[in-house]
């Protein structure tokens, strides 16, 4: 890999250290993300995924180990945290809960406005960001944020982060709670940001269909450690590992595995429904 844009080495984090409630959330985690990559981090609830990504824009500083983002050392006390946060846009779970302006356009403009950019540039960026997430600038900029649907609110929140023009976009469960239509649309938007705008994307997900569709590469986390890394096909092909770490598989993979376990010769890494149907047809000589 060329110089990674995100380089995490031996990162550990303990919550409430020195108290009876001490909890080791991260244990010697090392991960590298190349520029332009789309990386998924998966793992059982409580495996440390969210703690890990909060290091990427300095919300949590490393207790031990290093986090280097685009050459900036997050543990350094001298780091300019605002510069870091302009480079790494973090979209939390349910970002729609964090909209605070009354109007859509104002909410998206908040970041660039606070950066002290000239008004014309702020406007240009808001238009650009809203366009990227599929919100019409003309139609939506003066819409009250409370009257939006869940999917629309999430797009507004995403646009608010994009308006800072980050190099790395970090998303925590980007489509959780969205209906199937909004989910597909948002996935498509994220993929385009990655492929066309060359944004490095890191996302945490428990939706394996989403990981299968979006990710170039996957890290599997368990008990605060990074236990495995590979392409979605490699990861989903390793049912043992996923079971061991309580990670679900796409439903279609579940069907293939059940068949596989019954002794049919079948390729269990065919993780899309269409591929699964093909495998079944092959099995039945059709």
């Amino acid at each position, binding site marked *: 890999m060329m110089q990674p844009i995100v380089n995490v080495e031996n990162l550990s984090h303990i*919550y*409430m250290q020195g108290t009876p*409630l001490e*909890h080791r959330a991260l244990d010697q985690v090392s991960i590298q993300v190349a520029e332009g990559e789309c990386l998924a981090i998966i793992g*059982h*609830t*409580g495996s440390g995924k*969210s703690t890990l990504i909060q290091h990427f824009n300095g919300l949590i500083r490393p207790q031990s180990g290093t986090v280097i983002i685009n050459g900036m050392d997050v543990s350094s006390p001298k780091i300019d945290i605002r510069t870091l946060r302009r480079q790494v846009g973090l979209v939390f*779970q*349910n970002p729609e*809960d964090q909209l605070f302006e009354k109007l859509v356009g104002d909410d998206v403009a908040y970041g660039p406005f606070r950066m002290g950019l000239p008004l014309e540039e702020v406007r240009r960026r808001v238009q650009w960001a809203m366009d990227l997430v599929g919100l019409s600038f003309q139609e939506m900029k003066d819409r*009250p944020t409370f*009257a939006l*649907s*869940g*999917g629309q609110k999430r797009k507004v929140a995403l646009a608010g982060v994009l308006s800072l023009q980050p190099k790395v976009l970090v998303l925590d*469960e980007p489509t*959780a*709670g*969205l*209906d*199937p*239509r*909004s989910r597909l649309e948002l996935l498509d938007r994220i993929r385009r940001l990655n492929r066309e705008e060359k944004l490095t994307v890191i996302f945490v997900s*428990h939706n*394996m269909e989403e990981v299968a569709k979006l990710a170039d590469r996957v890290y599997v986390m368990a008990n605060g450690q990074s236990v495995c890394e590979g392409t979605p096909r490699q990861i989903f092909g390793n049912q043992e590992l996923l079971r061991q770490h*309580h*990670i*679900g*598989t*796409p*439903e*279609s993979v*579940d*069907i293939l595995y*059940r*068949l596989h376990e*019954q002794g*049919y010769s079948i390729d269990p890494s065919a993780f899309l*429904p*269409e591929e*699964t*149907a093909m495998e*079944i*047809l092959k*099995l*039945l*000589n*059709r």
Partner: protein
Amino acid sequence: MTPQPIIRVENVSFAYQVNQDQQIPVLQNVSLEVFPGEYVAIIGHNGSGKSTLSKHLNGILTPKEGDVIVNGINTREKQRIHEVRSRVGIVFQHPDNQIVATIVEDDVAFGLENIGTSAEEMKTRVDFALEAVGMSAFRHRPPHHLSGGQKQRIAIAGILAMKPQVLVMDEATSMLDSYGRQDILAVVRKLHREGMTIVTVTHHMSEVAEADRVIVMEGGRIVLEGTPREVFSHQERLRELHLDVPDASRIAQLVHSEYSEFTPDLIHNEEVVAEVNRLYVRQAEASGS
């Protein structure tokens, strides 16, 4: 004698007031009956009114027009709202909004404290509820340090401790990973087997496949209703409504379109596996004879 419905929704309409002269209609003349021991799933895309409907089931919202009757009590009767809520408990999508205490077991006991349950009974119920959601080991932890999925299990435990007759899940599993979801579904299945009435609002079609009856909403109205198998057989209609079908149905239909012997209206993973077995064995027999 036909059984009495435990919840009766009669011609309910509801609108959110945006400002003085603008209203957004959310429910339009919805009627629905839920019978004791039933497992009902409500689906529809965001904005179809399904969450608003679920909030009517225990009087969080009261209809603009029409009535909601829970066990004979109209949810408009404000002085009896506690009776309604002791029968119908709702678990919501976002766990953070439902957690009130600083220690897990206190949070689960919160509702019980409010209704003056004895300490002994409280302990029994909290034990039961935490056990049911698989969180007993966390009872002395502060909830805000739990992960989202774990918090949601605590929220569900808080409702279970109240022993309601009807458990309403408003996208309660949508923030959980698939194992977390399976855990919760196993709990729900068990409660349902033991006689609890379940109403679930969900986007997860494999979850819908478990219900006795599915209600499909669009534009604040009920547009389709039936068993999961009936509803998922309308793939075209569901696509128009921007709804999914379970992967198992999708795969069964894809295989069926190439190989007509393969039964198309399957909805569970096990059914697809069994159907492959059936046809495989038949082929083996045919070539053997």
